[in-house]
């Protein structure tokens, strides 16, 4: 299939449709921004929630929890309640939320505003990753525009509904992408996950009912309100409806964000959109959904459909849709080291198995790369990994073990080569 034909068949621009024309509010309005919010304000709160439920929208932050159900958990008799956007994108290999904020900020603000109306919240927060200096500036400007035009503030569009937004920057902590850690951070504390229950739906920000959703999730909402649940469900599969932005990077010809219907194959994304492996090399491995989506997949998994159920059935996780591609000459021990070092650095320190275990695995992997790895180190690493998994407060600990367990399982020969070669035989 030619690249052009593939693009025509698969590229489905819904949440990326206004890229290039939505830098200002006038551009966004010309593309239909805030029409869905206006429509939602004419419905009851329950009607809005029912539409989102019926569309089957699932959270795009990694876990895939049904958004409408989450909104429905918010008790109606407790005030105030809060709506929070998790814009703390930090998963290695993910770069979709940053682009959504930079290139169509009003789509995010509108999706949040509809959500706030649905749950009866008058106060929303965007927690944007600290390093995203440009995205935060774009959002600040867009929020200012939305206030000026009356889409935020008092008595919005004559509906009697009031809504304010605060943009808060994180300060360099991946764990704040975990929703309860994010709420701790918003309250001015160390970003360490809370014990659940109680869940944020009843005891979230300032111990009040709170909805936390990812940027891409909110971006879908206006389109669902405008076009209806059946239209949304015409993309993807029954259990994974809609479109998804996949972030393709690493050793590919055309790295980039590609919005496609759920269930597009990994092959179409990597070989079609991504243009295949760079420099005519063969594919060695790819992550289906980011560092937290390991085990890695090998070339035998290229025909897996990229939706929650299919990726899980194939033994991994869809995560955030971050697909990092490794060519045949990439070192998987180094890849495991990069990921493990990431988790060791980002472990919040609360749970001992995660804090100490990631440190030990990282140190051992460094020995392999430095040429001092031993056969027994493989067993030690797997043993340490086994003592982290299931023994930490949040999912970070579980995810942290998969890079080492999956590379030892799939590319044990590379570890052995590091021992024999007294160092890395790859160099990249």
């Amino acid at each position, binding site marked *: 299939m030619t690249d052009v034909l593939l693009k025509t068949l698969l590229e489905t621009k819904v949440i990326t449709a206004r890229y290039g024309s939505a830098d200002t509010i006038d551009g966004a309005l010309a593309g239909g921004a805030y029409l869905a919010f206006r429509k939602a304000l004419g419905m009851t709160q329950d009607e809005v929630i029912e539409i989102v439920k019926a569309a089957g929208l699932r959270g795009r932050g990694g876990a895939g929890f049904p958004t409408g159900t989450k909104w429905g958990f918010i008790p109606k008799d407790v005030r105030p309640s809060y709506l929070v956007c998790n814009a703390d994108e930090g998963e290695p290999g993910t770069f979709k939320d940053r682009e959504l904020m930079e290139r169509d900020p009003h789509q995010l603000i509108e999706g949040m505003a509809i959500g706030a109306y649905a749950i009866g919240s008058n106060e929303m927060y965007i927690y944007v990753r600290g390093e995203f200096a440009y995205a935060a500036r774009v959002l600040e400007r867009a929020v200012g525009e939305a206030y000026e035009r009356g889409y935020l503030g008092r008595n919005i569009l004559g509906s009697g509904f009031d809504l304010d937004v605060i943009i808060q920057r994180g300060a360099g902590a991946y764990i704040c992408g975990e929703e309860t850690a994010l709420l701790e951070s918003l309250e001015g504390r160390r970003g360490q996950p809370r014990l659940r229950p109680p869940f944020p739906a009843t005891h979230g920000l300032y111990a009040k009912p709170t909805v936390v959703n990812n940027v891409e999730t909110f971006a879908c909402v206006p389109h669902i309100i405008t076009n209806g649940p059946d239209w949304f469900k015409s993309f993807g599969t029954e259990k994974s409806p809609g479109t998804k932005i996949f972030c393709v990077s690493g*050793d590919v010809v055309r790295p980039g964000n590609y919005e496609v219907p759920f269930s597009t194959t990994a092959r179409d994304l990597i070989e079609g959109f991504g243009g295949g492996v760079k420099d005519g090399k063969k594919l060695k491995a790819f992550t289906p959904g980011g560092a937290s989506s390991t085990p890695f997949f090998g070339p035998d998994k290229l025909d897996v459909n990229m939706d929650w159920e299919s990726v899980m059935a194939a033994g991994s996780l869809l995560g955030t849709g971050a697909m990092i591609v490794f060519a045949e000459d990439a070192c998987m021990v180094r890849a495991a080291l990069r990921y493990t070092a990431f988790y060791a650095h980002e472990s919040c320190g609360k749970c001992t198995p995660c804090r100490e275990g990631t440190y030990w695995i990282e140190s051992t992997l460094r020995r392999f790369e430095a040429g001092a790895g031993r056969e027994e180190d493989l067993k030690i690493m797997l043993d340490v990994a086994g003592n982290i998994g299931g023994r930490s407060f949040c999912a970070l600990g579980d995810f942290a073990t998969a890079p080492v367990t999956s590379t030892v399982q799939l590319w044990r020969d590379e570890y052995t080569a590091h021992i024999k070669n007294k160092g890395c035989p790859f160099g990249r």
Partner: protein
Amino acid sequence: MSDRNGSKPAPLTADFHASARKIMGRYPPGRERSALLPLLYLAQSEHGYVSPEAMGEIAGLLGLTKAEVAAVQTFYTMYKRHPQGKWLVSICTQPSCTLAGANEIKERLERDCGISCGGTTEDGLVSLEEVECLCACDGAPVVSVNYENYEKIDAEQMASIVQTLRSGGVAPRGARGEVPEDFASVNRRMSGLEAPR
């Protein structure tokens, strides 16, 4: 702790305190502690790092102990415990950037500047650091200067940008078409002071 000249930093300015009151007023009554992260950025913009003296003043403003403020400050990597250079150069070494040659960039900048990541040049102009994924992997390798990204850049190009900064010149526009602001300005902005509300 003292700054690089061995002297204690000046108390936070009247402007800091006026701005701090404005930021604290954004949050619901009784929830002023939410202003802690923004205030740490604001303090960092005055001293080039978050000094113990500044933490004491912030603790006083928010009704916290200095230890509570320090616990938060030390948790987040963007709050610095030592004075930073005017230009903070952050090199991503996560997988996509590593595959695209991030280590060559890191080694080249360390050699040129005569420091390791975590350090600041003698002239106080450039700090280098190795960072986690900056989430711009389609532009790998990615290096940021005061959080303004340079993407698809090689060691030679990045070395030239750092050389320009060290000789007092203006950096070229980054991947988003912006010229990096200095460390003080970018931290002031990150306090959210200029937000519409």
